[in-house]
């Protein structure tokens, strides 16, 4: 009897967990712990810290996976409005750290509202499109775009280019998946190019430097271009098979910046080489493919938009990070998803994957 109860409880516990996706995520998180150990120079504190981050994020995943879909629909608007209020709060009362105003002190905890918006923005847009699914007009897309741009511009002002790009991407994916026509996307692209000078003027000096550096990192080899050059050297010197675990000279001799966070891919790539990169790309592709399958199978318009946006945002993380470390994209503060050290991004990402699982498993429940 007890056995039976235990078994059923366990069943209840894992019924909304998608095992295939979770296995791929788990593999990525194992890689994270492995590489952080090397990148931190054998610092167990750092490894344990990431372990805790992973555990917390897994709890978030479990919670999100168990949230029923209608509940997600219901919280979309409050979360978005709350997030926007906090972003405005940051703009006025935010704490300044490293020259950027990103944090809001709520008395008990200090939080980074822009992280909440990574989930809240696609959620809100998907909710909006769901509401107007039957009568979608150009006007609806414009409203959705405004819903997207408001937080993006606020975050850009903080300044936090990396997060702004990720949120803009996630919102764009919702617009795209909602059936925005090609002509309009192209028109938007042209508009974006036309507004580039305006955006450029909004960028902070260090952000401009980073973009300029992309085109010619050597011009300031010891200054702004240093990170890119050293990361490229690390990746290139890794070769096909890599220098071996714990043997990366670029990372262990301190030439690489932010080794456990934004530039962890350089450490990984130096030690595991092209072969390691293929494995990592393969894992990411697997996760993305699984996300696309869930998107394709999604039962409602809202969930399809959410699932597609979460999957493509995850892809954006991976592409932008690996692109910047290997020197084909400017250095923006985007971590390598599930591998870089950091609790916030880990929680946000796994929240997203929890929603994906919820979309997949609750659909089954609905069907059966």
């Amino acid at each position: 009897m007890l056995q039976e109860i235990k078994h059923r409880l366990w069943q209840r516990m894992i019924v909304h967990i998608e095992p295939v996706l979770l296995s791929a995520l788990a593999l990525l998180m194992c890689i994270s712990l492995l590489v952080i150990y090397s990148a931190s120079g054998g610092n167990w504190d750092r490894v344990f810290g990431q372990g805790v981050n992973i555990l917390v994020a897994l709890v978030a995943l479990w919670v999100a996976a168990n949230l029923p879909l209608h509940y997600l629909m219901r919280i979309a608007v409050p979360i978005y409005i709350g997030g926007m209020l906090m972003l405005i709060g940051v703009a006025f009362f935010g704490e300044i750290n490293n020259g950027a105003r990103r944090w809001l002190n709520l008395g008990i905890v200090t939080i980074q509202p822009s992280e909440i918006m990574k989930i809240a923005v696609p959620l809100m847009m998907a909710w909006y499109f769901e509401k107007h699914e039957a009568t979608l007009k150009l006007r609806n897309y414009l409203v959705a775009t405004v819903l997207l741009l408001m937080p993006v511009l606020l975050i850009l002002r903080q300044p936090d280019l990396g997060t702004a790009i990720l949120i803009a991407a996630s919102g764009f994916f919702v617009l795209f998946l909602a059936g925005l026509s090609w002509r309009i996307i192209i028109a938007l692209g042209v508009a974006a190019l036309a507004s580039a000078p305006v955006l450029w003027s909004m960028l902070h000096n260090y952000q401009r430097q980073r973009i300029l550096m992309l085109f010619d990192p050597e011009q300031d080899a010891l200054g702004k271009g240093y990170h890119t050059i050293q990361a490229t050297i690390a990746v290139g010197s890794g070769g096909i098979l890599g220098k071996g675990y714990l043997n990366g000279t670029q990372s262990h001799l301190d030439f690489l910046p932010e080794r456990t966070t934004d530039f962890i891919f350089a450490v990984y790539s130096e030690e595991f080489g092209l072969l390691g990169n293929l494995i990592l790309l393969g894992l990411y592709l697997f996760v993305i493919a699984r996300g696309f399958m869930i998107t394709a199978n999604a039962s409602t318009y809202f969930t399809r938009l959410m699932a597609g946006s979460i999957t493509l945002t995850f892809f954006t993380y991976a592409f932008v990070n690996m692109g910047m470390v290997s020197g084909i994209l400017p250095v923006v503060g985007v971590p390598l998803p599930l591998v870089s050290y950091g609790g916030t991004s880990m929680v946000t990402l796994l929240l997203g994957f929890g929603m994906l699982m919820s979309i997949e498993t609750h659909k089954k429940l609905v069907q059966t």
Partner: protein
Amino acid sequence: MFGVGLVLVMFSLLLIRFVYLQIIKHSHYETLAENNRISIVPIVPSRGVIVDRNGEILARNYSGYTLEITPSKVPDIEALISELSLLVDITAKDRKRFKKLLAESRNFESLPIRNRLSDEEVARFAAQRYRFKGVDIKARLFREYPHRELTSHFIGYIGRINEQDMSLLEANEDATNYLGSDYIGKIGIEQSYEKILHGTTGIQRVEVDSAGREVRTISSTAPVSGNGLTLTLDVKLQAVTEQAFGNYRGAMVAIDPSNGEILAFVSKPGYDPNLFIDGIDEQSWDELSNSPDVPLNNRALRGQYPPGSTIKPFMALAGLTLGKRNASYTIKDPGYFSLPNTSHRYRDWKLDGHGSVDLFKSVVVSCDTYYYGLANELGIDNIYNFMSQFGFGKKTGIDLEGEVSGLLPSSEWKQRRHKQIWYPGDTISVGIGQGYNLVTPLQLAAATATLANNGIAHRPHLVKKIQPVPNALSNTLPNTLPEAQPAPENTPISPPASSPKINLDTEHIALVKRAMVAVTKPGGTAAGAGWGVPYVMAGKTGTAQVINIKQGEKYDEKKIDERHRDHAWFIAFAPVEQPKIALVVLVENGGHGSSTAAPIARKVLDYFMLGKIPKPLPIIKEAENATGD
């Protein structure tokens, strides 16, 4: 399905980038990573120590701390120095010296603002060092010349490597051996024996982190310390000479006639070579370079003076050897000489003449008239050919750089130099060492040594042997020791090639030497200096005119400004039977050789021959005329 396409295209882009970096450009980036990782650190060898023939240290190294600034890392040097001066004592002299160094410096090197920091200053700076980017305390070996002025004109000094030195090193492909070296020999033995003294720079390959901190040593080649030098010179003899000169300016060179070893090499005044090592400050430089005594001028090596009457023994030998004179040939000296059919009188220093004069007496009393006639009979080109055998008009080949060759005139020279033919009248004054004749004290000393050695010349030299430093002394890593240096103990400097013996008749030499001994005896021009000498010394006085005296005018020392007085010469060797020392004393504006130069020579010889510490010499009446030469 656009999403799938986007993902695949973008990931393919990444893959292409990875293949490009990790396969196509792999070796390029591997090299870059290696260069990042490995830093080549030169280990500067310690410079060879220089000692005199008795082992007295003349140039040595000591370790100390300097405060150094790397200008390329400092935006505002003036402000930085002001800040630093609150911690360590930085004088106006230091600042000026630094400015001079800065102007001459190579890129990216660090320059000393202060040397010889006290322990307290080192501690004070160390506590505040985080405030000073581009400033470092460095432990270094310093060069020191303990005898200062006494050795300045032959030891020379080292100084910081400047652009000019660098391009010279590069031309000689020595630049890699000077990685990390800050100093190079600039003058004197420090310069001419640079290769031996410097040693071989060691190389350490270290793994460094991005801040340039050493993580571990990968391999290292130990430096090989520079070889030491043992000089031929006796610094005590040098000191005795300096003391004997008193306040006079001048030069003295003493040579062992049997082998060319230089026993003393004095140029007065000297200077403190220690001032030059890290760049001399402006004030000291002005003092040295503007002094009327020109202390930076190496008189022994580069001073050119008419030899005056010191040429007479050589002229006498020329007359004997070339058959124009013999021992018994006698002239009547009326006090002057005139060429046939001319009225111009070449005057003897003694107005009424020396009476009947043979060769012996001509040397002893320094009769001018005798040599006017002899020179006229020999002719300038015979004089030139004979004298050049003694090294006049040529560099001696001493192991110092910057030697000048003096001037031994010939008709060919006058044609070349002045586009004029040689007149017979030009020859007359050459006979008594005036006219176009110019010699350096070193040259005259070498010629005197050759005469003392019966015509066998040895190249004068300052270094007796090279003293290899045992490798154990240099800090080495045992398993990476280089091949044992083939360093034979006490390598003697390659024995200087001696010129072929000058073809001289033994009788002739003996006669001239006898006359030179008589110079120092009562009746001779140096009787005062030779009084009571317990060994047998030979000598000859001389006077080099500084200003011309018109026909019919008498030279009156007292009427003439001190700086225009004649230079006094004395050449000597002793003991006559088996000469151990030959020397030249030149006293600038010393008047007559007999009164200033000869007494100095006597003190030097007394010390050398008897180990006597000099004391005032007794003054007795000189031969015939106290002002006689």
